[in-house]
């Protein structure tokens, strides 16, 4: 009915929006697994947000001074301290792994199993090397600098607490992601998804990109601030 009076436009807009959204059997044009991953990631976003908000809060409430992150996280290379060098490399590696993951998803939809496998394993290796560098960073802080979760010779104890808790929780996510990627990659190669379709690669990718994105925020709020 083209001659609907203009007065009604607003309510009919909202009503038709609701009707369109609710009328189908499926609210989102997504598969079950993909939607579930999205909802899980939304929930996980809240977990990391609360971690970061908690960190910012104790940084405010801490009575001792907060250490200078550019000094704490500097690497001594070639006779000079280069601030945030290791973190820069780690961030670069993780973001590169998002690139290989995206390529893997593309190959999966082209049903190129060998290339998908290789790219997913490459992603997993990049992820594993990220965790390895994190382990190096942790051991440097613990052994050389004497930082503990409960104490920190350089200032506020909360620096160590928040650092180990947040990077630990994120590192756990990366490690789980590495296992997840490896399992899916092997299943892809074995032809497990030939009939079901290769959407699982994209779902794995969603998780992986999320873990990368979280790292960007941790990097910004913990290391750069």
């Amino acid at each position, binding site marked *: 009915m083209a001659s609907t009076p203009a007065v009604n436009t607003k309510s009919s807009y909202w009503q038709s929006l609701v009707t369109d959204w609710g009328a189908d*059997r499926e609210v989102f044009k997504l598969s079950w697994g993909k939607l579930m991953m999205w909802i899980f990631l939304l929930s996980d976003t809240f977990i990391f947000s609360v971690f970061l908000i*908690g960190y910012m809060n104790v940084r405010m409430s801490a009575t001792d001074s907060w250490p200078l992150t550019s000094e704490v996280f500097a690497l001594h290379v070639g006779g000079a301290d280069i601030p945030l060098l290791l973190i820069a490399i780690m961030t670069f590696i993780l973001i590169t792994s998002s690139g290989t993951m995206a390529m893997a998803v593309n190959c999966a939809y082209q049903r190129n199993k060998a290339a998908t496998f290789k790219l997913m394993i490459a992603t997993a290796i990049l992820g594993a090397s990220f965790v390895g560098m994190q382990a190096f960073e942790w051991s440097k802080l613990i052994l050389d600098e004497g930082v503990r979760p409960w104490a920190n010779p350089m200032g506020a*104890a909360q620096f160590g607490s928040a650092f180990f808790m947040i990077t630990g*929780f994120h590192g756990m996510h990366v490690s789980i992601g590495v296992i997840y990627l490896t399992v899916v990659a092997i299943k892809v190669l074995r032809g497990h998804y030939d009939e079901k379709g290769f959407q699982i690669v994209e779902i794995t990718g969603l998780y992986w990109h999320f873990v990368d994105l979280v790292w960007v925020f941790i990097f910004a709020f913990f290391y750069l601030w």
Partner: protein
Amino acid sequence: MTHIAIADQTAHLHHPKTFIGKYIWSQDHKVIAIQYSVTAIFVGLIALLLSVLMRLQLGFPGQFNFITPDAYLQFVTMHGMIMVIYLLTALLLGGFGNYLIPLMVGTRDMVFPYLNMLSYWFYLVSVIVLMSSFFVTGGPTGAGWTLYPPQSILAGTPGAGSGIVLMLLSLAIFIVAFTMGGLNYVTTIFQARTRGMTLMRMPLTIWGILTATILGLLAFPALLVSAIMMLFDATLGTSFFMPAIVSLGEPLNHEGGSPILFQHLFWFFGHPEVYIVALPAFGMVSDVLSVHARKNIFGYRMMVWAIVIIGGLSFIVWAHHMYVSGMNPYFGFFFATTTLIIAVPTAIKVYNWVLTLWKGNIHLTVPMLFAIGFIFTFTHGGLSGLFLGNVVVDLPLSDTFFVVAHFHMVMGVSPIMVLFAALYHWFPLVSGKQLHTGLGKLHFWGTFLGTYAIYLPMHYLGFLGVPRRYYALGDTSFIPESAHVLNEDITIAAIIVALFQLVFVANVIWTLRSGPRSVRNPWGVASLEWHTPDVPPVHGNWGDALPTVHRWAYDYSVPGAKQDFIPQHVAEEDVEYEAGGRRSGEGE
């Protein structure tokens, strides 16, 4: 469509053959629901016992030697935590959510049955971890269910050693369990509905469960993170929540933490938690009222929007639990305003429930009695909530028995009234047998009148200024003798109410053992769950073909129709009308 609609295919259903596959490691949502319910009701009975012990001390201080101050605080804490998390959340979402979602929206099972099974087993582990704290040195934590640091992890608080650690671990495991279940519920409701089951045709039960689950998925993270941080404070000696403290002249090894941070995180979870419990109850009570009044729910669309709006608002009211913690007055103003705004959609719901009864053909069955009882208790609890939402009224009343009475009426008694309504209402569907009506009515009147006998005087105690959680009042000058008498009366009422719950337990056991078989769909319900080929429904729910939905869930007493309800899956051309009767259109 990028995927195959597996909802329509029976081939994918894996029917278990062995007893263990069918009933223990079951992936059938109905079995999982019963597992959840039985576990939740079992721990609920333990929490009930704890509340009686706690009341014995308050009513008759000094008469029971085994209730030491430590034990009393432990009873209070465990009673609260078990009731809120392990009974109400688990029974409403894990129990009723699991049972009703696939049946009401017309699917064969949850979208990921294996994950659903894991959800129950994680829940069971969390319960076992929690219960094990009764048997460790120092006993369970006695920090109060809010677990406020610094006192919750400092020596002097009962259970400050292993009790609090087990409590936090148990909560973390529960959250994992809830997440696995919750992802399933949301995805099932969004993506796996049967043909014709649009969102605006779903029973309100499903709307309540859906919104509550989304709240849970977004609110439990705050509890998880605060539990992890406090776990580190307690075990590793970090200072997230611990300021510098001098204890017995000795400075403790903490400084620079923020106890208020925990309160914010806890209540960012804690307030939505109120609605995680309340919204499924709102939904279920709407359905029970409509069925037993033989009348469609009044204002279905408004009811749906009210549920969604309450869910949204529940995330921006949390600091009204913290008026006495100290905050910028402008924040108090903000949180008082949002708190009072939430009363608007809630009041819409109450009016609509009452208007559903108006000119209805009310059958005072046991579920209906409990549902009407809910309207009373919820209105009372809600009205005292309006008082407490205001900063100036809350300040003197906070931490008194007025608050205890308020939240027990609004989120203790009220959801439990709905749970009983739901148990009596859906029992014939689950077991094929109907609970005994006489015993049910006895149970209702004992519970309903008894809760008033407990909680009405408590409001008065709160006005007198009697503080909550105190072990004994002693000879406090501002508390008159009558308060002590009142406390005795409340305790006696509490014991009577607790005994009345045994009537329910006896009723369930007797009915399961030797009760008569119920007729199919004894209440004449229109929504899908009562129209499976087999009652009780078997694995796969729908036999060969999924039902097709043609109408909303509330076609009761349609003018001109022969039957006083029209099931959701009956097409308009199949409805029998009386000769000359008026034909009606779609329910909406």
